């Protein structure tokens, strides 16, 4: 998995939620760890480190990505959006999550919300199939899928 050619620390600027952060990182550091450990925004979660669970989902120039799989270098000069600023554009989605009491342990929910909001941006009235397609990359060990689906539909209706 790792080679011996390890890059050096470099100074970089990340733009997260419209704010610039100076960081010092190796260019291959996954964006997830730059956000959590270097910038200190901890709403974005580590779940698997392999792009399998979706807990680390953030937006890069408005598109959902698995931040554990994207080297920080790729994010330079782009807009990164994390759960901490979701309320500026998708508070109605968070409200639906609250109204239906979606979270159990809550750990995967930032990633679920970032995936769900990205879906609604492109498809304001998603079908069950579209929801399944957009959300099946996000694992919830507590098993809140039923309510996540209901909340996405509720948010779609409330946005009208």
């Amino acid at each position: 998995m790792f080679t011996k050619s390890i890059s050096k620390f470099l100074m970089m600027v990340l733009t997260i939620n419209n704010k610039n952060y100076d960081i010092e990182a190796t260019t291959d550091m996954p964006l997830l760890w730059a956000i959590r450990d270097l910038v200190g925004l901890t709403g974005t979660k580590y779940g698997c480190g392999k792009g399998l669970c979706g807990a680390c989902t953030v937006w890069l120039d408005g598109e959902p990505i698995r931040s554990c799989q994207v080297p920080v270098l790729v994010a330079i000069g782009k807009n990164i959006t994390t759960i901490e600023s979701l309320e500026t554009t998708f508070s109605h989605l968070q409200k639906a999550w609250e109204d239906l009491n979606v979270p159990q342990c809550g750990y995967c929910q930032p990633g679920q919300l970032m995936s769900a909001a990205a879906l609604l941006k492109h498809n304001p009235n998603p079908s069950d199939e579209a929801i399944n397609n957009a959300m099946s990359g996000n694992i919830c060990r507590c098993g809140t899928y039923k309510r996540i689906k209901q909340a996405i539909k509720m948010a779609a209706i409330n946005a009208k």
Partner: protein
Amino acid sequence: MTQIINLSRRSFLKGLGLASGGLVLACSQPTKSLASQLLTDAKTFNPNLFIQLKSNGDLILIAARSEMGQGVRTSLTSIIADEMEADWQRVSVKQATGDVKYGNQNTDGSRSIRTFFDSMRKMGATARAMLITAAAKTWSVPELECKAENHFVLHPSSGKKLGYGELVAKAALLDVPVEAPLKNSKDFKYIGKDLPSIDVQDYVTGKAKFGLDIRLPNMVFAAIARCPVTFGTVKSFKSETTMEVPGVLQVIEIPRVDRPFGPLGGVVVIATNTWAAFQGKELLEIEWNYGKNKSYNSAPYMKTITEHSQKEAVVMLNNGSVADAFAKAEKVIEASYQLPHLVHAPMEVPNATADFKGTLCTVYAPLQDPQTARTEVAINLGIKEENVTVNVTFLGGGFGRKSKPDFAVEAAMISKKINKPVQVVWTREDDIQHSYYHSVSAQYLKGSLKGGKVTAWLQRSTFPSIASTFIKGKDHGMAGEFDMGLINNPYAIENIRCENGQAEAHVRIGWLRSVSNIYHAFASNVFADELAIAAKKDPLQFRLELIGADRVIPSNSEFQIDTKRLKNVLNIATKNANWGKSLPKGYGMGLAVHYSFYTYVASVIEVSVINGKLKVLNIQTALDCGRVANRNTVLSQFEGAAIFGLSLSFYGKITAKDGAIEQGNFDDYKMVRMFETPNINVEIVDSEATATGVGEPGVPVIAPALVNAIYQATGKRYRSLPLADFNLV
């Protein structure tokens, strides 16, 4: 007996982390647990529930139970707030540190509400009575003319009204009334209703602080390479390449700590960030002494325990004579069931942050059992328990894994060695490969039929026991495991015999959500279905007859199985599923019913199997958990349990090869995802009986109901899991 004490005037408050002042009540409530059966150091039972009403009217509950998604912070609070006639908007929760003064804090066994429901009501009622007394004294009117309503005491005939905050000073000086009247349950405002989680806003905004979110000044991060074989040790290691990783600060070794919750030991990479620690760990070159568990291979092991289950073993229960009944039977059926190890895989991996300074240590971690963490850390560091502070964060899932605080001890050991605050982070691979595993199991069942009735039932259960983690070499089960669906079989059968076969443990065995109920309910529910087929009867009718007449089955447990309640949940689930409706070819419906954590649960699952591919269409669950604290939480737990049960049925399988766990992440230890999620409907039986467990009892019924449904759809009987082994999913 619950005893309530007024602590308002005592200096005790500082230790609770509460500011002084206001009305503070405490109550003592003894608890029992699976872990306390095993841990010899008995805990002292002190007052363990605390509330504080401040002079500004804020009501604070100290939650000494850990929140891991089961909604306990909300449920416990709602009970007190209701009895106290408190305004829900004025209530907040403060998480307790790990301390014996809270009694047993181990949040497992689905028992928070069961053990605290009545005490919480009494606490709330006591506070309300004291506030009424304070108001009545202020107005010089009889108490009976006053009533409490939504954070106020009212005197309706004069129209006088005082807020709770205004009454605090006076109430704090009062003695605790001997008997405070409880509310009539029809007047409940919060209990049994749908209350939103007290923490939901923090969850949806990313503000909730889990263990991994703790950040301390000058803190470093650590990843640990542990021996692939359980209890193996480091022979030698090279860390040159690791040290070249930018951000890596130091590489040290920590030893195995030979205690049930002791760290496995290994080579620790300390770095300025998590990624560097992970990367450095991968680049270590380590030679291991694998030790004797290198002989552990899952396939031959399953063969061995299956053989042990097929010959006479230790008798745990023997009613009548199964041998005589088998001899006289018209039909004798035999079956063997085999289930693999499982692992909890909570979304938040095990982790802990520790800050050791001189003789003091502060720990922040997602812990189900903070007191045991405190004890283990103190022993390990050689300092007094009172010098260890264990702060409980939110738990990103627990499922039993976070009852074992080995990861907290690791953090404390490392912090002491490097003299810095450190966060130990397990990778997902570490979590899956170095856990306390749910037992692998083999069961042999033999039953006989005569005149369409079951005349004898023999069940031999063989599994490496949780006890082996506590007692070296222990190769048989313990009472807590037999009580989970083996010897408390609810069936009206004259001749029953239960035995327990020998099984050695080669990995750490621990409890996982629902514990032994998973394998016992699987075998007994699938076997009952096989008997129904053999008797050529409808599985529902057959099962109702098997449970038999309404009766309470005597046992020495604090709760007894009431067969009427068991049949009731089965009848509701089957009715909701429209049991008996005609289904197209390739479709089928199966049922399972199980009593665990004193709660009655039935699930009916409808599936289709088309072109060899399984689709789960519908899960109907009915449950009776006695009185409900928070309806929303109960529904959530059973919806989630259906998914947890499907995950283990479809994919759950941990195997060892030469002692090393073969799975490592969500690609080879898969979870059910949204596209596989069926319609799930949960019905709660209306009941005034004592509140019982909710977090775990929804899981055990899922796998057997599914296997029984697949049989109806295909005529094929699957006696082992996961179904992925048969390419069904």
